[in-house]
Structures are given as C-alpha cells and as structure tokens.
C-alpha cells in the first residue's frame, strides 16, 4: 500500500536510457504511483543529446513540457525555440515535436493526457523500462515486465510489436517472431510499415520466418 504522500527528488529516480542512448527516462509517474495523468521527466545527459524524442502524440494526448534545469532547443512543427529553465512548451496532439539538450544535465518534465478521457497508464512506459533493464543486463526483470504489460493490455498490436523488438534485441528469435505474428494479425498495415523501419528488428530480417509473417 502506498503512503498518503511521498517526497521525491528527480536526482534519486532511476536513469533509463532509450535503446539508442538518449533520451534518458526518469520514471517519475511509476515511481510516484501518480494516477490522474501521465507525467515523467526526461534527461539529456550531454549537450546535443535528445531530451524529448521526435513524436506526434497521434493518439490524441496534449502535452506540456517544462524545462526544469539545463537548457533545451525545442522544435514544434516548423518552429524552433531555445528553452532555458522555467520554459513551458505546450503542444497539441498530432504536432511533431522534439527537443535536444543545449547544456549537459538538462531535465525536462513532460505531462500529458487526452482531453475528455480518463487516463490510463500507457504500455510504452513499461516497454521503455523493460528495454533499459535488458540493456543493463537485468533481462529476467525486463522479461517479467513485458509479460505483465502484455497481460494488462491484451489485444494491443503495439504491445506485441514492442515485445517482438524486445525479444529480437534479447536474442530470442522464436519468441520475437511469435509476438511479431500476433502484432501483424491485429494491424497488418501498421506492423508491416514499422517492421521495415525499426532497427531493433534488424536481426530478424534475414530469417525465413520474416517472409512467413509478411507474405
């Protein structure tokens, strides 16, 4: 059972890098057990590192980014702005955005949800954590988290796709193809497109089972 309130420091949170090294997730929402909407912090360890990944929230979430420390360069749509500490950047859903750290140790808080809907935790959080755990050698913990996430989001093609990426990186091709097949059955168009582009799946593309899934 959680305490009635908690005191935390962003510096005490785990540091969970994306597969390509940056950005680094400081898993605030998971650590705090915060339930009303999504809120996390992202770290750019070095100037030039990505601190907010390029994406568009096509699921309908609006987001607010707050530069907590350091400095970042945000690009939202066609506009690029320098963002010192205390800068607020609001981005409506569907608009492409990204941010790069302009100084070492830049931290950006990100809050987001879809207006008019009750918020639920998204699978990407668990997968980000699982991928980071795997990269840090915590493979059993990571795999347990993937299993748990898939159980909580049954029917999600994104979950199965991410699980395929996870197993491909972990070196279990049979498990990766099983997940990829299920993802493809649920959303053939999206999965075929993402599978062609995703570097995590590179170890699978030369395998005969690749054609069995997509042809």
């Amino acid at each position, binding site marked *: 059972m959680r305490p009635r309130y908690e005191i935390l420091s962003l510096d005490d949170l785990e540091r969970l890098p994306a597969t390509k090294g940056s950005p680094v997730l400081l898993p605030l929402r998971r650590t705090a057990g915060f339930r*009303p909407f999504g809120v996390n912090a992202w770290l750019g360890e070095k100037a030039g590192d990505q601190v907010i990944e390029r994406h568009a929230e096509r699921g309908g979430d609006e987001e607010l980014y707050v530069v907590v420390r350091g400095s970042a360069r945000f690009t939202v749509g066609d506009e690029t702005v320098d963002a010192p500490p205390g800068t607020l950047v609001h981005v409506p859903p569907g608009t492409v955005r990204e941010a790069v750290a302009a100084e070492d140790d830049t931290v950006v808080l990100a809050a987001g949800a879809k207006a008019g809907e009750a918020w639920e935790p998204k699978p990407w959080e668990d997968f980000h954590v699982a991928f980071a755990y795997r990269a840090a050698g915590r493979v059993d913990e990571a795999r347990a988290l993937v299993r748990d996430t898939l159980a909580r989001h049954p029917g999600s093609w994104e979950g199965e796709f991410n699980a395929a990426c996870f197993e491909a990186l972990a070196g279990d091709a049979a498990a990766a193809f099983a997940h990829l097949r299920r993802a493809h059955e649920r959303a053939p168009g999206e999965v075929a497109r993402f599978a062609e582009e995703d570097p995590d799946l590179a170890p699978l593309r030369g395998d005969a089972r690749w054609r069995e899934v997509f042809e």
Partner: protein
Amino acid sequence: MHVDALDRIELDDGFVWRPVRRRFGIRAFGVNAYSPGETGQVIEEHTEETFGHEEMYVVLRGRVRFMIDGDEHELGPGQLVVLHDPSLRRSAVAVGGDALVLALGGKPGAPHEVSAWEATFAAIPAARAERWEDAIRIHEEALAERPDDPRLLYNLSCMEARAGRRVDALLHLRRAIELEPKWADYAAADSDFASIRDEPGFPA
C-alpha cells in the same frame, strides 16, 4: 513561453497564482504555478477533498517549506511532493526570497474537469479594478461549460450585484442556492450583495 511571463495574480491569502492551464487552454489535466506574495505563502492551506484530486508539487526555483498533515519538509529545485490522499491538509511557504512551484493535479480514473475556482481567481484583477463586466464575462465563459456549478453561479451573482445587474444577480444567486443550500449562509453575510439584500426575493 517562460513561466515568469505568465500573469501574476496575488490572492488575499498572500500567494501568487500563475495560471498555466488557462494560458495554454489545457483541457486534459490541471497544472498551475505559484510564487510567494508579500506574506511568503506559496501554496494556500487546503485539502483536495472537494475534487478528489491527487496532486504533485514540483519546486522549480528557490527553497520551499511544505506543511503536510502536520509534518514539515523543506524542498529545493528538482524535489517534489506527491499527495495521493485528497484529505491531507497541505500548504507551503517560501524560505528566503524567490520561489516557484509547479502544481499538477487531477482525479484518478476520471476525465479532467476545469475547476471552478480558476475563473474566480482569473476574475480577481478585474474585480479589484471594479471592471465588473470583465469579471462577469470570465464567469459566464466558465459557466458555459459548467452551467450548474453552484460556486460559479454564486460568484457570478456577486459580480452582477456589484455591477448593478440586480435581476441577473438574484436569478443566479437563487439558482446557486437551489443547487447547494449552503450558499444562502454565505450570501447572508456577503458584502457583495449589499445593493440587493433588501430586494424582494433575496433568498438569504
């Protein structure tokens, strides 16, 4: 935009509200910033029992002493407090000079609804300057989304009474009391209604 460029609305309790959600038109969650006013207060003493909100306060600048359920915690930049239990009594004061706290909140498992108090806070500069029509407009805009919110109706009737719009004031006050009878007690002692208290049909 930079947080320091947000409006600064100092409340009578001594803290300064920096309206983030309202500035950006955010609909999905509650978010605002607070800085100390003359008294050093940053977060007013309150609970979230009315709204059932879970809250997170993040110190962006300065040092801030939080009082939570009788406990004191002095926090600096990058530190935060998460209040899961809406019944916890909470407040905060700045330690030293400048400080800035980001407050995020919402009700778990429910779509976010904009809190009625935001319109009341936003109307304060207009009310202080006796620009009653501007204050009325701010409340009417909020009521368009929440037509049966008794707090909004009550505060709108206060502004209308001050503006000399007696009929509107009486109608909205009566509706507020119909929805939530406690507003009759407030109206009985509220100086905003001095101009209409002797009107036939004044409900308190």
